[in-house]
């Protein structure tokens, strides 16, 4: 972002400071954004019956570790977290890799059928995924992948949205002049892709990977169908084991939900800044 210093004149344009209203708005949004987490923690640490009182408990209580113990006794939660991390990382890397390839091709290379394929990609983003669950299961079962992490990873290796995003990003961030220059210097397409395009889109690729990881972390319908044994569960399936009762123990469920979200929060603390700048860099500029 460039800033042009205004010429020193009497009518110097005034940039207004953020008023009180602005801070109130931001503060309110920040509070609302975080409140559900806080509430999860309050319920999980107080036990269900506390929440049923009028007025409900609003401050955290002492029973958090007890509730968490309950969660761990119901499901091997740490294993679930590890499983989810494995699937999340592999899928994220693969999605970024394949999306960048295809996105680059759509953005910068000319080949027959290019336009048709782009339309096809966008159109398929619109199909409801619930439809495909049963046939996909039959396919997976036929290959003997039921109850394996493969069943979660392989179908998720590519994503139409990733291709769409990468195409957008490459289009916006990689100037043709650079490619022109390299091609004049004799570099082939592979070389151009590797040494010029990839470094430029690194940040956006990272963001795509992060969102991909998040989506995998929060995915539920498919893993719940495919995974059978407790040591194969992913985080959401594990949390759902707490819920699938005649009885809805809110403390246990929200404790589990909290534990399923906590790693993401920690991740967020570490890479949050990068995520923010990545989202902003990858945005379409007007």
């Amino acid at each position: 972002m460039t800033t042009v210093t205004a010429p020193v004149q009497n009518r110097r344009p005034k940039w207004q400071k953020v008023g009180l209203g602005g801070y109130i708005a931001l503060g309110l949004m920040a509070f609302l954004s975080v409140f559900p987490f806080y509430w999860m923690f309050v319920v999980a640490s107080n036990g269900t019956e506390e929440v049923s009182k009028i007025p409900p408990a609003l401050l955290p209580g002492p029973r958090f570790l007890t509730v968490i113990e309950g969660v761990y006794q119901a499901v091997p939660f740490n294993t679930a977290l590890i499983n989810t991390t494995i699937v999340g990382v592999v899928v994220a890397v693969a999605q970024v890799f394949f999306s960048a390839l295809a996105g680059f091709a759509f953005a910068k290379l000319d080949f027959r059928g290019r336009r048709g394929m782009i339309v096809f990609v966008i159109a398929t983003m619109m199909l409801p995924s619930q439809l495909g669950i049963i046939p996909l299961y039959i396919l997976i079962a036929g290959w003997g992948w039921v109850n394996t992490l493969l069943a979660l990873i392989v179908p998720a290796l590519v994503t139409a949205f990733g291709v769409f995003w990468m195409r957008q990003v490459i289009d916006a961030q990689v100037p043709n002049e650079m490619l022109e220059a390299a091609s004049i210097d004799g570099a082939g397409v592979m070389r151009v892709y590797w040494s010029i395009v990839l470094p430029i889109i690194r940040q956006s690729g990272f963001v795509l990977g992060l969102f991909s990881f998040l989506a995998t972390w929060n995915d539920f319908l498919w893993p719940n169908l495919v995974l059978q044994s407790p040591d194969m569960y992913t985080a959401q399936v594990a949390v759902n084991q707490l819920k699938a009762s005649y009885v809805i123990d809110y403390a246990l469920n929200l404790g589990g939900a909290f534990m399923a979200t906590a790693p993401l929060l920690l991740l967020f603390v570490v890479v949050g800044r990068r995520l923010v700048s990545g989202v902003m860099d990858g945005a379409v500029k007007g």
Partner: protein
Amino acid sequence: MSHVVANPSPRPKDKGRSKGAPSPWRQKKKPKEQAEFPGLRSLNGKWGYLFVAPFIIMFLIFGLAPVLYSTFIAFYDYDPLGEQTFIGFDNFAYLMEDSTFWTSIFNTFDIWFWSTFPQMAMSIGLAAILRNRFLKAKTFWRTILLVPNITSVLAVAIVFGQLFGRDFGMVNMVLGWFGIPNIDFIEDPFAAHIAIASMITWRWVGYNALIFLAAMLAIPDELYESASLDGAKSWQQFRYVTLPGLRNTITFVLIVGTIGGLQVFAEPLTLGGSTSGGSEHQFSTLTLFLYDQAFVANQWGYGAAIGIMITIIVLIISGINFLATRALTTGEAK
């Protein structure tokens, strides 16, 4: 790493405004985009096939084939464990007369409306505040707004379910302070839609605010300065400098939001508590209706027919979106 500020139109030569000519601070609308090739002819296009191959192949196997199979069964009275009879377009004919189908279309659009437009206004507003150079703790605000995006939908639904409880939920408690009587967010269709819309808004408003912020930051300061030198007030600057500059971003956010919004599933299922969508089907969105008919009412062919209708609807809407934004970008500047 340097980024070059380039606009997404096919002509890659712009680096900001052209120099020399005095630039009116009111943005001219961009000329109609040529359907040109945006890339580089000198690169060997044949590589394209290789590069898209992994994506296309895997997509065909895992993405498309299952859906095609399901589409095929839309023409059958399909029982996976029993008989399968070909019935042609019967499922579709029935669907046209099924009042729940039309209700779910209405619900989906109602929820889409209430979760898209207020949210967009909020995101743009937030972005405008965040853009301000004098804002304290910029990174803190930006980061915290992304927090809702990383939660799982299931967990959020449980929490919001509690917050929206009719008799004892916190939302009604707060409303009670203002003298508003308890709202039944589950039984009253409009309130139910607002509840779902607020869940969606909560999740996405921060994310979209950041996208808009990025776009706003790309609007050159000179435009604002020329404007204010011309005596424009802040709201005028907003209307004639900021908004036009956000046009493409708004389109992007709208399209992605629409595709997602028309497929809302987990929130109504968890908040409403059943696949049938409540006593007046107030929670039936199109995808929930599909799920209910296919897997709970055991009418798989019918569910597949609904799926096809959903796709058609989304295609139509996206088409409208696309044409509308095309028209807007080729209009005259005021």
